[in-house]
């Protein structure tokens, strides 16, 4: 045989995968068919055979092997009739089906050798199968039981040391010798022996370079390595107190070997993300064609590796996002031309590692997400109230696409837009400990950023302490760590309505105290503490801080599930074993957020929450914001009527007609001076550069109420004396030993707005 015959065709990865898989399946198929003949009622086997042929047919279609597909197609038809019990499998059908299996094998062999399926049509077999499908006897009934018995010998599920090459060879010889006239005339042209040898080598190469290992074995290995890591951590801890040098050097070695072992075992389960991406060019192409769009798909970081369980888990979410980008994101060539963009939209999928995580970005240069459209849709679908929608930032608005039941497609296409999807995408990604974020600029494009852990079994975590116990927080959700001293606490921590908030670079971040959340210690007044450690984490509804007693360490932890007796707690996602052998609980950030009532329902509306004291008579406990406005009058505003506290630069104030306004959250917010509304003169210094503004909303309209100074937030049980009651003032009360007027903000704002609307803004 010549060298050229030896020259192997470089097969694309998906073809190699197809070959390995199909060959294994076919071996099982032989067995199944024979077993079925004696036990034709075994539904499981019929279904299994059907699935195998169906898969082969499907993959062929995908890879463009039309002839093979044609054969598999009629075979599948026959099998489906058998499966549906229209026919029973008798010897005749078994023979024809086995013949089909051999033909399929022949094709696969050809593919394996040359990369193409050849030109053989096998019309004869197809017509035989078709006859059987139609319920007619095949034109030329033949029996070839020998073929069957030959190929039964192998077990498809044995993967380890099965002598694959021999098997292939025998199959090759079988097909070539048993049906030299029918089966593979192409192969026959070359000497059969050399052909099969080439095939054997091809297969040899494919199966030699890799061993198919049962996934559960890998999972076991991974578990064991997890245990080993724990044992190592414990030994490390013990030896740190022991100074014996022999022991400590051995421990060092153990440490290194364990780390390396862990890494390598993890690698066995790793697959390049390219295996998922490989199917996307086709998906994108077909989709773009059907939408009449032009899309260039660009991959970056195809070789980025991920745990196989994660690869499986992101397949569907990624497909959905890509479909979404093509369907909704990228515009038609005409629209693009009008916008001065290139006709071909660019869809870029990039994957890269970043500190123990894999980031996958799917970005298009399409139309982007219009926040206004999203808002309108969300209101229409009842996902948010119109009040709430007005208060959302663009980013928050964009995130609404992940809300259940949301779909922006103006018309429902067969591709996407059926109202399922983005929420499922998000849930699926969160299920594997990942997060998804979307950034969009109208007319410039949308980028979805998915952050997923490399593996699910061992995760890097931050260990914090609280009342003597340690808790782990997965680093995926970690944003930053802060340590505030007394001074900083005074500056940055405020308590509104019994809930602490932290001013973090100009943003308000809710703060929960882990100890009181877990009811380990009575809630304490954070503002009186000397120092606090705050772990800022990314919750579903934005970042929030968890104050803990101390930050211990970062560690790789092995996540272990909790027993059913403690699963319901919700705050913990699992447990792990620390270096000293003790169990530590893993905090579930989402659970902590909802336990701290930081989920959407309350986070935006700090004023209203459960636990607001019952509405009493005039003697009720209320949380009040004490402000100064006008002369020296102290005024108190119920926090329930306040949406937010803001500061505006004097320079931000613009004029709409005669009315001062500021731009606030993409809307125009009129400003109202509390002092003048109450008929007194503002006592503030004219040169002040910042306005303290209390934002109050009526319907969708926010109004900024300017006060001179914010003095205090206090929860008091006040007795309102109606002495000074007038429009907008309920009366007076003694708060902190000082007489304070209680302002009814809604009345003031409403009367202000009625005049304000009058001047036509």
């Amino acid at each position, binding site marked *: 045989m010549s060298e050229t015959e030896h020259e192997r065709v470089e097969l694309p990865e998906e073809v190699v995968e197809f070959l390995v898989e199909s060959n294994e399946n076919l071996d099982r198929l032989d067995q199944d068919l024979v077993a079925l003949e004696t036990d034709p009622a075994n539904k499981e086997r019929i279904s299994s055979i059907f699935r195998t042929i169906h898969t082969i047919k499907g993959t062929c279609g995908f890879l463009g092997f039309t002839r093979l597909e044609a054969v598999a197609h009629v075979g599948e038809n026959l099998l489906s009739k058998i499966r549906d019990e229209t026919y029973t499998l008798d010897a005749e059908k078994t023979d024809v089906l086995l013949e089909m299996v051999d033909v399929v094998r022949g094709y696969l062999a050809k593919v394996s050798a040359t990369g193409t399926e050849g030109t053989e049509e096998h019309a004869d077999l197809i017509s035989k199968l078709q006859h059987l499908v139609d319920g007619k006897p095949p034109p030329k009934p033949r029996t070839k039981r020998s073929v069957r018995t030959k190929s039964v010998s192998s077990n498809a599920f044995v993967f380890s040391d099965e002598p694959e090459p021999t098997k292939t060879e025998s199959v090759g010889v079988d097909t070539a010798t048993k049906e030299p006239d029918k089966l593979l005339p192409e192969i026959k042209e070359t000497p059969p022996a050399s052909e099969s040898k080439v095939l054997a080598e091809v297969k040899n190469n494919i199966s030699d370079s890799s061993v198919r290992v049962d996934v559960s074995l890998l999972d076991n290995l991974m578990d064991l390595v997890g245990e080993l890591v724990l044992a190592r951590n414990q030994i490390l801890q013990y030896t740190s107190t022991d100074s014996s040098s022999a022991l400590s050097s051995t421990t060092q070695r153990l440490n290194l070997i364990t780390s390396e072992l862990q890494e390598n075992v993890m690698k066995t389960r790793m697959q390049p993300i390219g295996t998922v991406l490989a199917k996307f060019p086709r998906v994108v192409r077909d989709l773009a064609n059907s939408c009449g769009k032009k899309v260039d798909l660009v991959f970056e970081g195809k070789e980025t590796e991920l745990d196989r369980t994660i690869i499986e888990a992101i397949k569907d979410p990624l497909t959905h996002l890509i479909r979404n980008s093509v369907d909704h994101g990228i515009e038609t060539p005409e629209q693009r031309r009008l916008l001065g963009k290139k006709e071909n939209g660019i869809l870029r999928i990039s994957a890269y590692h970043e500190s123990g995580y894999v980031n996958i970005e799917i970005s298009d240069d399409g139309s982007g997400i219009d926040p206004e459209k999203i808002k309108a849709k969300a209101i229409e679908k009842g996902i948010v109230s119109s009040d709430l929608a007005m208060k959302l930032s663009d980013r928050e608005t964009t995130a609404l696409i992940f809300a259940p039941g949301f779909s922006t497609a103006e018309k429902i296409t067969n591709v996407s837009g059926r109202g399922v999807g983005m929420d499922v995408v998000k849930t699926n990604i969160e299920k594997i400990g990942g997060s998804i974020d979307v950034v969009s600029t109208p007319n410039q494009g949308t980028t979805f950023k998915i952050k997923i852990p490399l593996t699910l079994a061992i995760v890097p975590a931050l260990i914090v302490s609280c009342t003597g116990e340690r808790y782990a927080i997965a680093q995926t959700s970690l944003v930053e760590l802060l340590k505030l001293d007394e001074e900083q606490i005074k500056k940055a921590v405020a308590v509104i309505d019994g809930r602490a908030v932290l001013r973090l670079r100009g943003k308000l971040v809710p703060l929960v105290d882990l100890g009181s959340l877990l009811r380990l210690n009575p809630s304490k007044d954070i503002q009186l503490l000397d120092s606090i450690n705050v772990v800022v984490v990314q919750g579903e509804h934005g970042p929030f801080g968890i104050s803990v007693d101390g930050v211990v360490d970062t560690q790789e932890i092995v996540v272990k599930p*909790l*027993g*059913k007796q403690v699963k319901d707690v919700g705050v913990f996602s699992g447990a792990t074993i620390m270096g000293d052998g*003790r*169990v530590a609980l893993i905090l579930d950030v989402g659970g902590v957020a909802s*336990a701290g009532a930081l989920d959407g329902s309350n986070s935006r509306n700090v004023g209203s929450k459960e636990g607001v004291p019952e509405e009493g008579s005039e003697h009720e406990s209320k949380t009040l914001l004490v402000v100064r406005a006008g002369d020296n009058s102290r005024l108190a505003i119920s926090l329930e009527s306040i949406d937010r506290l803001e500061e505006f630069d004097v320079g931000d104030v613009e004029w709409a007609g005669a009315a001062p306004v500021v731009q606030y959250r993409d809307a125009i917010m009129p400003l109202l001076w509390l002092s003048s509304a109450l008929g007194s003169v503002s006592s503030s210094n004219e040169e002040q550069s910042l306005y303290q503004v209390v934002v109050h909303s009526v319907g969708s309209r926010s109004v900024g109420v300017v006060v001179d100074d914010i003095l205090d937030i206090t929860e008091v049980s006040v007795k309102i004396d109606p002495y000074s009651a007038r429009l907008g003032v309920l009366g007076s009360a003694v708060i902190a030993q000082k007489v304070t007027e209680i302002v009814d903000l809604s009345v003031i704002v409403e009367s202000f707005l009625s005049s304000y609307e009058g001047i036509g803004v």
Partner: protein
Amino acid sequence: MKSATTGDALQFCSFYLGDLFLGISVSAVQEVIRTQVMTPVPLADPCVSGLVNLRGQIVTALNLRRQFGLDPSYPKPPMNIVISYSDGAISLLVDEIGDVITVNPDTFEAVPETLESSYKALLEGVFKLDGTLLLLLNLETATQIGAFA
């Protein structure tokens, strides 16, 4: 205490809980271990004493005294009877471990009707032994939390 031929005899791991003399089938018991370092689970049902590391396996320890409505504090460090399930193991904390007792199934009787219903639910029945009664613990209800809170 043997009162029957081994052929139809049943074996129980006996233990004490307050004044109660209880038993569970030996086949259900994975192992019996001494008091372990325990990690409490905040916010969990009070019947959950904590989590124990049993050779890398995380075991939920249940306060059986609380299940029976007894004084929840153990007079001395409790013993763990570890019961293995397919979805993890749990440990029952008991005052003291007794012998493995072989009993004659004929001595079995249902729980006396007069017992409090919460007790009845936690027991499967009673074996009449010489001079004492062995209460057969109903593992299913005893490992359920919140049911008798």
